[in-house]
């Protein structure tokens, strides 16, 4: 009975907010919002929108950012997996990169900003000896008009994500055997992988790639930290309009959100075009029969790309940490003149409340998400077949629809029902984003569970409830906790949902950190970004240590 609720809850949770939210965005975009006196449908908001200066420039910037981010990060992941998959080095790099997955976008953007700014760590490292820069050069690196820093900030974060989903898809194509087979036909490592394995891997990671495009075309926090300001990318301008004292701007913002929806959809459509071109190119190369064996340059290049992207974040995080304990630290000193714990002492009191809210919301939304996901899987087991492709697409809904496009409407709904800025509303909004990750990351471990344990327990007279709580749950403790850690880190990193639904009253470490970004106080940003980094890491530490403790007397449960 209860398990039947699982899929219903999941579908309701994923579609209702998106559907209602979209309605709440689209109606005002066409002039309908009775609360503000908009009673008639019309195109006036769009007329205002397109009269905004450089609006197409902003939209184009968002479009290009999405495509470039997805193309570069996917190519890097593909080439790296092709060149190094199955090697010991691959496993090492994988371990190096996976922690970055849990790092909130804002924190990695800060890390990059601290590294590449004209007065950042790289400039300090080589100045003035190599560059002659006695003072920081007047170069527009962070906030550059082409958005290159912003794309870099997104790419370094999307690479770990795409690598992880690729790894999850890899076993199904039996890579070791396929590699051996393709190698026996004389193909180079990379060409063999791209021609032989990639075509069956890519369809499995297509939705995540779309999610990357959707995210990158509509990102707000990374864009605010690294992106251009004259003009800013579309989503950043939308959020500003949303916060304008002139309420009629809400119509404009809603129209802009519809434009954002269009931009994201266009980006995905163009990508599908890329896919077709890519497929044709691949066929051509394949039919030509070229083996492309001399690919060592590309192989090392792929490795370098991975190392640079991960290394940049780690070095940036180090810089963040240093700034958080820095006293006076002038350019071009590589280290602060003094170290000072005073920054921490000053910030700690104001850190407590956002920290408590972050933990509470992350904990509850993760718990609820994991429970719902489990209910779904139990239901699946009862039914005897997995959900179809439609259900899977549904799961990706909150990740494919640009956040601004439905969060505006959702916020309006919450305001009208008087629940905006309540803990329940915030947990709910987080749940929408945590649930897909919880479901997707629990899917494989759950299905991999050896059903014979169930049968033995049933044979010993255990009922379904007992079997579930005494056999299934404990044996799945490790993946369950890992999934919880993923959900936790997703919640910690959520910026826009927290900003819009929390309405500034409920703030988390992430919203506080991004708010502080504009002030440029590196010490305080360092502290907040450090906390952003520590929280997910702590989650994963718990997920590793607790099972080790539970299973210390069960040798067969050791990893």
């Amino acid at each position, binding site marked *: 009975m*209860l398990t039947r*609720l699982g899929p219903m809850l999941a579908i309701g949770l994923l579609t209702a907010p998106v559907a209602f939210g979209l309605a709440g965005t689209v109606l005002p975009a066409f002039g309908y919002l009775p*609360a*503000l*006196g908009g009673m008639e449908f019309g195109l006036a908001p769009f007329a205002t929108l397109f009269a905004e*200066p*450089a609006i197409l*420039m902003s939209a184009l910037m968002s479009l290009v950012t999405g495509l470039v981010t997805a193309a570069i990060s996917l190519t890097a992941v593909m080439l790296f997996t092709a060149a190094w998959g199955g090697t010991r080095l691959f496993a090492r790099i994988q371990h190096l990169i996976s922690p970055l997955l849990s790092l909130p976008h804002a924190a990695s953007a800060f890390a990059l900003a601290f590294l590449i700014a*004209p*007065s950042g760590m790289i400039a300090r490292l080589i100045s003035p000896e190599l560059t002659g820069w006695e*003072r*920081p050069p*007047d*170069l*527009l690196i962070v906030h*550059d*008009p082409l958005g290159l820093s912003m794309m870099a900030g997104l790419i370094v974060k999307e690479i770990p994500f795409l690598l992880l989903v690729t790894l999850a898809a890899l076993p199904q194509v039996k890579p070791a055997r396929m590699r051996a087979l393709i190698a026996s036909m004389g193909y180079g490592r990379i060409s063999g992988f791209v021609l032989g394995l990639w075509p069956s891997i890519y369809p499995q990671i297509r939705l995540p790639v779309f999610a990357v495009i959707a995210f990158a075309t509509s990102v707000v926090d990374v864009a605010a930290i690294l992106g*251009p*300001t*004259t*003009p800013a990318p579309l989503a950043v301008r939308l959020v500003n309009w949303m*916060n*304008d*004292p*002139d*309420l009629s701007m809400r119509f404009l913002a809603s129209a802009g959100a519809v434009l954002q929806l269009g931009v994201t959809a266009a980006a995905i459509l163009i990508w599908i075009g890329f896919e077709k071109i890519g497929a044709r190119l691949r066929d051509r190369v394949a039919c030509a029969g070229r083996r492309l064996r001399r690919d060592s340059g590309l192989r090392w290049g792929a490795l370098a790309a991975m190392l640079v992207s991960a290394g940049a974040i780690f070095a940036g995080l180090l810089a963040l940490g240093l700034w958080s304990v*820095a006293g*006076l630290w*002038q*350019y071009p000193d590589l280290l602060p003149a*003094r170290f000072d714990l*005073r920054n921490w002492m*000053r*910030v700690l009191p*104001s850190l407590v409340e956002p920290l408590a809210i972050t933990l509470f919301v992350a904990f*509850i939304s993760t*718990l*609820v998400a994991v*429970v719902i996901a489990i*209910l779904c899987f139990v239901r699946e087991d009862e039914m005897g077949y997995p959900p179809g492709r439609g259900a899977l697409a549904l799961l990706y809904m909150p990740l494919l629809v640009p956040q601004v496009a439905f969060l505006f409407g959702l916020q309006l709904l919450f*305001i009208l029902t*008087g629940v*905006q800025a*309540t*803990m*329940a*509303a915030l947990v*709910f909004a987080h749940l929408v984003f945590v649930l897909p990750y919880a479901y997707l990351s629990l899917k494989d471990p759950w299905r991999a569970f050896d059903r014979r344990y169930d049968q033995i327990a049933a044979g010993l007279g255990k009922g379904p409830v007992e079997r579930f709580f005494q056999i299934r749950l404990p044996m799945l403790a490790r993946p369950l906790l890992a999934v919880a850690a993923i959900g936790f880190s997703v919640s910690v990193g959520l910026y826009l949902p927290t900003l819009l639904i929390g309405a*500034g*009253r409920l*703030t988390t470490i992430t919203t*506080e950190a991004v*708010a*502080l*970004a*504009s*002030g*440029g*106080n590196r010490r*305080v940003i360092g502290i907040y970004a450090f906390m952003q980094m520590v929280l997910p890491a702590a989650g994963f530490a718990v997920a590793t240590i607790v099972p080790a403790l539970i299973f210390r007397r069960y040798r067969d449960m050791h990893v």
Partner: protein
Amino acid sequence: MRALLFSTALLAIGTAPAAADTTQPDPSNWDAVLEDARGETVYFNAWGGSQNINDYIGWAGDELKERFGVTLKHVKLEDTASAVATVVAEKAAGRDGNGTVDLIWINGENFAAMKEQGLILSPGWAEKLPNWTFVDVENKPTIRTDFTVPVEGLESPWGMAKLVFFYDTARIKVEDLPRDTDGLLKWAQENPGRFSYPQPPDFIGSSFLKQVLAEKIDDPSLLLDPVDEERFAEVTKPLFDFLDGLNPVMWRSGRAYPQNYPAMKQLLADSELDIIFAFNPAEASSAIANGELPDTVRSFTFPGGTLANTHFLTIPYNASAKAGALVAANFLMSPEAQARKQDPAIWGDPTVLALDKLNEEDRARFDAIDLGAATLRPDELGPALDEPHPSWMERIETEWKRRYGVGN
């Protein structure tokens, strides 16, 4: 199953709306206000871009909790306009009581907008607050006239502001400092890339534009009245000619801007900028005390005068915790809170009080403050220029965005 029930129960928490606060506190009966305020939570919507100010508000919250049982929550804003937006939205949605904003740090255009739309707790309450007796209304005209708009007790004064410039003596000689905006342009041309201003509509950035306008306009009396659309282009031509000359020689050639004045402070520390400015004369001393700037930084102003104004606190008409907000506003105006605020080691924001109205003990608090070597004495601050009518700010911001805010 239990876990699910538990979580649904949790989801329900906080969804029940609290009863609306319909009583209108009367500040002339202060004891009743104090009584009413006990246990209330005041959501203080204030710009949150500067750590020392946030810390000060945190301190005030602790004191209010301890002394009056009022909880002060700082809602950190990037732009005060968003707090006004919230109140406007609530009014539109018919939420005339039990609003989400209780106290706003405000002045100028935002105050004018709220006053005009009747969004402020009224009748005027500020002059009935007990600590009003100490306020220097005689010598600080901006306390009763906010950007040419009469205050009428609809906001209580919190601090004084004057546009002051900062530079590092290790990099610039005193005799090279500009003495007016024309001098600044010349200096910027000789030192390309070393000056900038926060991107309007940032408050300080827009204020810089007004400073230029106030200096360059032919007839300054025009600024006291609302913008005359007919003559706007002609009247502001000197301003935009000036900016056309300045922007290309600015930091990043004017293709990017610092987001606010604390960001400029960091850029001064990084030696990216050489001349920065703020609305707080003690900003540099405060930053030196906190290890953010080297102790070679000093201040200067223009002999011809710089913009000066007062910043205030106001209470929306639909605030949930009106009594608590009144108590908070009164406390923040108290000699003790004002003296702490003026200390550069804490914040350094000048007081709105008249020292000769204070008793000896309170005066001693102010006398004990070390303003720091980088802070100009009050008599060195130079003449004060009046703020233009708020409509100028909005109009100039729009025009600025059109010309420079969208890249080329």
